[in-house]
């Protein structure tokens, strides 16, 4: 369904590499501060329009966790010209569809439509950015929707539930500690004032980047933006998030016991933000350990030792220092600590021995192929461009990433393994099944 919050790292634009090929990106800056990126692609008569707002759960406070995500839902519930339900009805009748997602760092609105709907889409977006209506009845109804979303993504998902506990334990100070969807009790207690405040701090045009790809030209986008978006006055930017997570000085552990058939093991290591130069070697390391059935972790845990039915590693671009997350699902009858031990041994192997030339080259090839796959659709292009612009500070980083990856050496991998993958820097969360009573 739409407005699917990607609570875990599902939105990972893993790592991207590219040749120095120029993809013909054009940019324009509106007077109110909104930057626009345009990429023409006339292969189908359709357009993808994404607006990235630099505001997410990281900008929240205890008591109103999940507000960014709830606000994202409210952006579809009526403004001045297009009242309740009219945003979706108008867009779908014009042949368009939409979604949106919220993460720790950003809130992103996505419109997909035939080019014939272009002006309608600008009218709809401008209306809600400028004149969002806060209707008490809509707020209450949407509160139920978000609570249901939390039940399906946390209550009904053991991985979602465990991840929430991992983050809550790994961070003591930084706002990445609370879930993007919010704690249930906060979902039940947001007020209209909270929403209005969120709009004021996060939704200034200067805090947004628009990306348009598909069957359009820069000129027509600039003309429409000047007509619909530019008149919207700029306000301030969100208050700076100054909190930094203090260095972790010892392993932290958390256990969840609940009705389940199989256990889960999850761990998080503190690693730097996307703009840090260690980002690239860490992505290469992640690829060597976790990507494909020939990866070290899959080979060891799933194939050879047969301890787990799956193992994944995630490292998603973030504004602030974040977690490198490992998730393993032990097989029936395998103790979680056996899985943990095997993971640690593979991590140690990276510190003491060097990876082979072939492994390093394989990782770089996988990253390159991933890049091209994302470029196959106008949606993939819009999302990737926006994420590079927002998380790495410049969309052009997308096209120089190939060089950044090619510079990664075996020594870099050893260095970062030693630096980040230590016992002290680790938080471990395990889900232990309790066989509950079932009625016959």
């Amino acid at each position, binding site marked *: *369904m*739409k407005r699917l919050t990607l609570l875990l790292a599902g939105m990972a634009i893993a790592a991207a590499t590219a040749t120095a090929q120029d993809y013909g990106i054009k940019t324009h800056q509106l007077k109110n501060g909104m930057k626009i990126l345009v990429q023409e692609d006339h*292969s*189908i*008569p*359709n357009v993808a329009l994404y607006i990235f707002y630099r505001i997410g759960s990281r900008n929240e406070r205890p008591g109103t966790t999940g507000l960014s995500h709830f606000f994202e839902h409210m952006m579809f519930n009526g403004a001045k010209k297009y009242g309740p*339900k009219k945003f*979706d*009805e108008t867009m*779908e*009748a*014009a*042949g*368009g*569809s939409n979604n949106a997602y919220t993460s720790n760092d950003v809130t992103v609105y996505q419109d*997909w*439509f035939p*080019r*014939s*709907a*272009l*002006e309608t889409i600008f009218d709809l977006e401008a209306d809600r950015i400028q004149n969002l209506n806060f209707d008490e009845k809509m707020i209450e*109804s*949407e509160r139920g*929707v978000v609570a*249901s*979303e939390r*039940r*399906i993504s946390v209550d*009904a*998902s*053991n991985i979602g539930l465990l991840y929430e506990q991992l983050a809550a334990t790994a961070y003591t100070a930084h706002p990445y500690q609370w879930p993007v969807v919010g704690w249930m009790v906060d979902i039940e207690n947001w007020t209209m004032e909270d929403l209005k405040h969120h709009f004021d701090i996060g939704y200034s045009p200067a805090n947004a980047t628009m990306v348009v790809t598909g069957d359009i030209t820069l000129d027509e986008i600039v003309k429409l933006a000047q007509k619909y978006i530019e008149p919207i006055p700029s306000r301030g930017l969100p208050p700076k998030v100054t909190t930094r997570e203090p260095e972790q000085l010892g392993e932290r552990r958390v256990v969840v016991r609940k*009705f389940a*058939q*199989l256990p889960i093991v999850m761990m998080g290591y503190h690693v730097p933000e996307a703009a840090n130069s260690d980002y690239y070697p860490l992505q290469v390391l992640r690829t060597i350990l976790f990507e*494909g*059935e*020939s*990866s070290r972790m899959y080979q060891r845990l799933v*194939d050879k030792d*047969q301890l787990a*039915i799956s193992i994944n590693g995630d490292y998603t671009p973030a504004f602030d220092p974040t977690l490198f997350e490992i998730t393993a699902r032990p*097989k*029936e009858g395998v103790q979680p600590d056996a899985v943990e031990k095997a993971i640690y041994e593979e991590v140690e192997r990276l510190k003491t021995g060097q990876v082979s030339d072939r492994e390093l080259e*394989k990782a770089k*090839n*996988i990253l*390159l*192929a*991933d890049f*091209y*796959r994302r*470029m*196959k*659709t*106008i*949606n993939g292009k819009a999302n990737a461009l926006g994420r590079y612009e927002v998380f790495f500070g410049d969309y052009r980083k997308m096209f120089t990433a190939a060089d950044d990856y090619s510079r990664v050496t075996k020594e870099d991998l050893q260095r970062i393994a030693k630096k980040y993958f230590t016992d002290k820097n680790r938080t471990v969360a395990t889900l232990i099944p309790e066989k509950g009573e*079932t*009625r*016959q």
Partner: protein
Amino acid sequence: MNRIFLFLCLCVLVFSHPLAAQDSSLRLPAFSKFQLRNGMTVLLLEQHEVPIISFSMVLKAGSTSDPQSKEGLASLTADLLRKGTRTRNSDQISSDLDFIGGEFDMGVSTDFTTGSAEFLKKDIRQGLDLIADIILNPVFPQEEVTKRIRQRIDEIKSAKDRADSVIGRYFLAYLYGKHPYGRPVDGDEVSLAAITRQDVERFYETNYVPANMILAAAGDFSTSEMRGLLEQRFNPWPAKNPSPVRIEEPRPAQGKRLLLIDKPDSTQTYFYIGNVGITRMNPDRVAIGVVNTLFGGRFTSKLNTALRVDSGLTYGARSSFDQRRMAGPFTIATYTRNATTEKAMDMALEVLANLHEKGITAEELASAKAYLKGQFPTSIETSSQLASTIARLEFYGLDENDINSYYSKIDAMTMADARRIIQQYFPKDNLVFVLIGKAGEIQSLAKKYAPTVDTKPITQPGF
């Protein structure tokens, strides 16, 4: 007044719809089709946007070819292809595939086995060597078979920890009963344990034959060169007669029955309501798609408006007609917290009853038509989508006309058609219900919906 209104509309159209004239003639890119001398069908479609080549295979044997009590055999066989060939072991295959950043996946449905692969253009020869080896020369080592069966059984247990990942399997089993569409495509905890290496080998020998194979390629290649590359690798595959299974047309359920799966940690109830629907070849499928878009196929649909937008009972409610070689299921699907289960189920049934009583409006019809036409191009945008589309058309005995006439069929649909479609294809009184939830809280309301109520715990093997 009307004339002015129309005139203004036309101005807007002329200004912002330069491609509108092309809209009603959206066409699949041209592709070529030929057969190898061993009977294998090949389809080739050039698309030069990115330096990637995608393959889609459709093998005319799926889970309906599984022997009785060996459910999951087709699926397991597809999985094991890459676990060793005459010249490469499992590790080499994975390593060769990952080294070139390639993708290779197999999947199985009731009617067929699918394979998809994708390589960068520069690696196409190594990529093709690899898939040809996997398809033509698998050896199914005993230890890989044993390992994979154990993993599969654990995966089913893990899936049962998430209601929304298994409710579809329970629904098909309960709806279709003994019909082959009711048997679990990926098997269950018991059937998988009964499968041996010999079963896998026999399934492969019987079903993986050239006459059963459709291979489509789309992407950055020249047709003549790709033809040569494929002939070189697949011509040596010996011809053999296929042994298709014959299955009966499934019959829609009569009356009402309900299955409740107890998952005691549930905070929400997940439910499917439906019956047997339509085949992929149904001549009314486009019109059915238009009506279903309005009923439960998009965000502003009647179901989602009632259950999500107006009432906040759920994160989402939808309906679908799953189209297969035989009639697949029609389902209404949603979920809601334990305490609002009855309210949400009543509401879903009311929306269905309203569709029969009130039908749809002309304005709604126009909106659904525009929506389907506006969204359709993104479903045939990439080389992998195109390869998969033409391979499936071939499987169903359809051709590019099915796609090329899509817009004109949508345009031609009338309000009278909509009324007929609702009467003919949307169930009314004959309904099958499957619920997964906390029986302790919702069991008492089950009998309100059906005279027949069955219950079982989620921990019980099978579906």
